[in-house]
């Protein structure tokens, strides 16, 4: 099992010009590794809709990679999105499922199906082009360049230690820069960055 930093630090090092969509318990940790104008926090938003938001971005920006750091609880809320992703024909989307088995933001209550659901197997069955599952930091770091390279859609399930991230809030004093503006303003900032 990885720590969040063991998952995020190598990703931040390897990330080039991809859009990164974060949600729930990785929103603030990711901002400690990256402060790119192409980072977007699906926070103060609809839980369960980060992956489909990322799909829309990927379809709109086919020449640019999109990485979605989704939670396992969020993914369970919209498991059908995996089928939509495959059916869309998108090739530039990498979906990372942060598997900690809990609703961390609300106090780490256990998820339904934790310990039984296998996201990598589900994605493979649905038709994802490449799928990975990691529970060791060294293996994850060794294979991450391959995960991020080539044709997608790609799904990587990463087992991460349960943490203690509290509720998310957008406010001008937020430590994470991408939480200092409203969701509305963040959407326009990303749109401007992509059109520039």
């Amino acid at each position, binding site marked *: 099992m990885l720590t969040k930093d063991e998952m995020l630090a190598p990703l931040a090092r390897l990330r080039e010009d991809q859009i990164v969509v974060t949600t729930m318990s990785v929103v603030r940790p990711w901002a400690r590794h990256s402060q790119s104008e192409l980072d*977007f926090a699906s926070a*103060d*938003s*609809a*839980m*369960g*809709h*980060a992956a*489909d*938001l*990322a*799909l*829309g*971005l*990927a*379809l*709109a*920006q086919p020449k640019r990679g999109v990485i979605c750091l989704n939670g396992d609880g969020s993914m369970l809320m*919209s498991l*059908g*999105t995996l*089928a*939509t992703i495959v*059916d*869309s024909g998108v090739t530039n989307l990498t979906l990372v499922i942060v598997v900690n088995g809990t609703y961390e933001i609300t106090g780490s209550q256990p998820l339904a199906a934790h310990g039984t659901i296998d996201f990598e197997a589900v994605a493979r069955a649905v038709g994802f082009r490449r799928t990975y599952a990691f529970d060791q930091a060294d293996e994850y770091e060794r294979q991450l360049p391959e995960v991020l390279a080539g044709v997608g859609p790609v799904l990587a399930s990463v087992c991460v230690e349960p943490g203690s991230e509290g509720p998310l809030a957008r406010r001008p004093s937020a430590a994470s820069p991408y939480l200092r503006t409203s*969701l*509305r303003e963040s*959407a326009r900032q*990303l*749109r401007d960055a*992509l*059109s520039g």
Partner: protein
Amino acid sequence: MSRASEGSGAPSAARLVECLTALEITDAIGIPDNDTAQLFERLRCHPTIRLLNVTREGEAFAVAAGLWIGGRQPVVIIQNTGLLESGDGLRGTVGRMGIPLLCLVGYRGYSKMLAAGQDTASGPLDAATLTRPDIDSVALLTEPTLTAWGVPFWRHGSDLDTDTLVRRAFEAAAQQSQPTVVLLTRGLT
């Protein structure tokens, strides 16, 4: 806010596709129902509008949000049953992000509701009305729900006003930076 605009004839899918093309819509996202099946068939082979089927209607709003942020101009096409299912997807993505988005929503149960002597101004809904076997409760709930969500909507039923109505909803979405809905009260031919 609502703007009723109805005629006697059934609108055509071909006309609606022409409208979407004229508005430079780039992507159509949704799930077909019996009333919009013709529209989906026409969009499936459209040269400039990309069609994407989703598995649940709430997804359509998040995908549309991503497309718009990425520089596209999507439309969402779903049934009113799916609209009710989409509540938080709509609220938390295109609604909260203030994204101008035209939505075409099949109005299941509308004709049956009118035939049963009910309409959208019949007054407060109660359990007796919502469980009447001769009325589809989704029709009773569609407009009050849109009103509660703060989503402007227009009723569409005739080819006579397709261009005007769809363009009006599209322009309102752009001007107000929010989703707007055209309710398709009759099946498309």
